[in-house]
């Protein structure tokens, strides 16, 4: 492990990732300070999820550097990677709850399996975390399949914050939810992140969500960061890609590939 600059919680430099001949990330540079909430926006298929999966260590980049707390993480060995994972929590787009386990076992999973906590103590923590996301103890014994999409998202959020990680990644946290439930999830994200002083990295194409949870926004297009800055400046970024994206216009520099039938 190589020591890099410890100033930023997450520092990504020159990150490249391809699938076959398709270059998804093309020398991405981005950073995130401690306790900061960074939101990465961009259209579908621009590499947002790939970027986050590379930072978390679920995908291995071909080139570039990813430093967490100034420590290089690309190429970490398995044991060191498992140790590093204890700093992370992640909310997946489809919630990714374990079907075979009850709600409380899902929330407590990282505590029991990852950190060796006793089942009874972990259950108490899980019920407290479920309460933090607005779910009562009666939900704890249900299976994920018995919950609505919004409730599953809340359980997934409770699971992500259960072990009180230093960094939480949110992958499309409001996709597939109605506007009210989306706002509930946004409020919970802001509350959970702010209260614990956690560093948060979210990816979304929902601008309402981005404006609500972000301290800083970065836009990814064709595998590169084309703009980044404070949330307050996004409406006067002067960047044609950002302007087209935040206003949801079909005309502009971003051309969607639509094949004729």
């Amino acid at each position, binding site marked *: 492990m190589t020591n890099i600059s410890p100033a930023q919680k997450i520092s990504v430099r020159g990150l490249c990732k391809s699938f076959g001949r398709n270059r998804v990330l093309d020398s991405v540079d981005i950073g995130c300070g401690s306790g900061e909430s960074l939101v990465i926006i961009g259209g579908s298929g621009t590499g947002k999820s790939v970027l986050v999966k590379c930072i978390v260590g679920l995908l291995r980049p071909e080139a570039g550097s990813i430093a967490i707390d100034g420590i290089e993480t690309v190429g970490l060995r398995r044991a060191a990677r498992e140790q590093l994972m204890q700093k992370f929590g*992640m909310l997946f787009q489809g919630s990714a709850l374990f079907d075979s386990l009850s709600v409380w076992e899902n929330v407590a999973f990282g505590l029991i399996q990852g950190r060796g906590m006793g089942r009874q103590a972990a259950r108490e923590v899980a019920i407290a975390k479920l309460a933090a996301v607005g779910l009562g103890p009666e939900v704890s014994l249900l299976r994920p399949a018995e919950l609505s999409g919004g409730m599953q998202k809340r359980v997934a959020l409770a699971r992500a914050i259960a072990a009180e990680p230093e960094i939480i990644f949110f992958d499309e946290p409001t996709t597939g939810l109605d506007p009210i439930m989306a706002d509930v999830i946004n409020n919970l994200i802001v509350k959970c992140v702010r209260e614990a002083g956690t560093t948060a990295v979210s990816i979304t194409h929902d601008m309402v969500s981005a404006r609500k949870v972000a301290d800083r926004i970065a836009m990814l297009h064709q595998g590169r960061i084309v703009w980044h800055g404070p949330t307050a400046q996004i409406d006067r970024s002067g960047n044609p890609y950002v302007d087209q994206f935040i206003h949801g216009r079909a005309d502009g520099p971003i051309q969607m590939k639509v094949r004729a039938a």
Partner: protein
Amino acid sequence: MLRFLAAVGAAFLSFLAGTGSLALFAGMALATAFSPPFYPRVILREMVNIGYFSLPVVGLTAIFTGMVLALQSYTGFSRFSAEGAVATVVVLSVTRELGPVISGLMVAGRVGAAMAAEIGTMRVTDQIDALTTLSTDPLRYLVLPRLLAGVITLPMLVLVADVIGVFGGYLVGVYKLGFNPQAYLNGTWQHLERVDVVSGLVKAAVFGFIVALMGCYQGYYSRGGAEGVGRATTYAVVSASILILVVDYLLTAAFFTR
């Protein structure tokens, strides 16, 4: 001609790559057995899944196999006035071959398919990535317990299948073919050696490993939503069934060829 050779070469290279990938997967999963954490609850759950819940299907298959075997061998041997060998043929066939092979194939259909579907669904719904982010190695948590459960449980299942299969032969022999019960039992025990049962149990352990490995491997690398999971399930059953038959021949040759 060149195109044909290129196709043969590509298929061969693909076979080698697949074999290498499977060996690497098995090696990495087994390597996790040598360091904590261990998941005894998960192993126990998988043993119940593989063993206890397969008992009805394996038991039914075994009893009818034993019954058919007694009938067929009787009709064959009666042409040479060798009906007395029916009990011996039934017990040797069941313990050496039919018990382990039929149990292996049944478990491949029931458990291998379920493993591929479960792990495949976990893959396409990001649950395996979620395990990783919760500081849990998916190979250690999902794959190793299934491999161990397969190796431990299938021999137990085969032992039960052996008893039920021999009992099926006994039922037909005594109640349909008119054998004296004591004579049939004597014929069963007289020529049965320890190696007949042990070789069947060793085969069962290997088949258990194959079924679990193919189910986990196909599920773990499944791609492309529901269609991918369906494909993984089919591949898991087909590949496990073929491997069981191939390995059965190799093990039989190793045990009984002099």
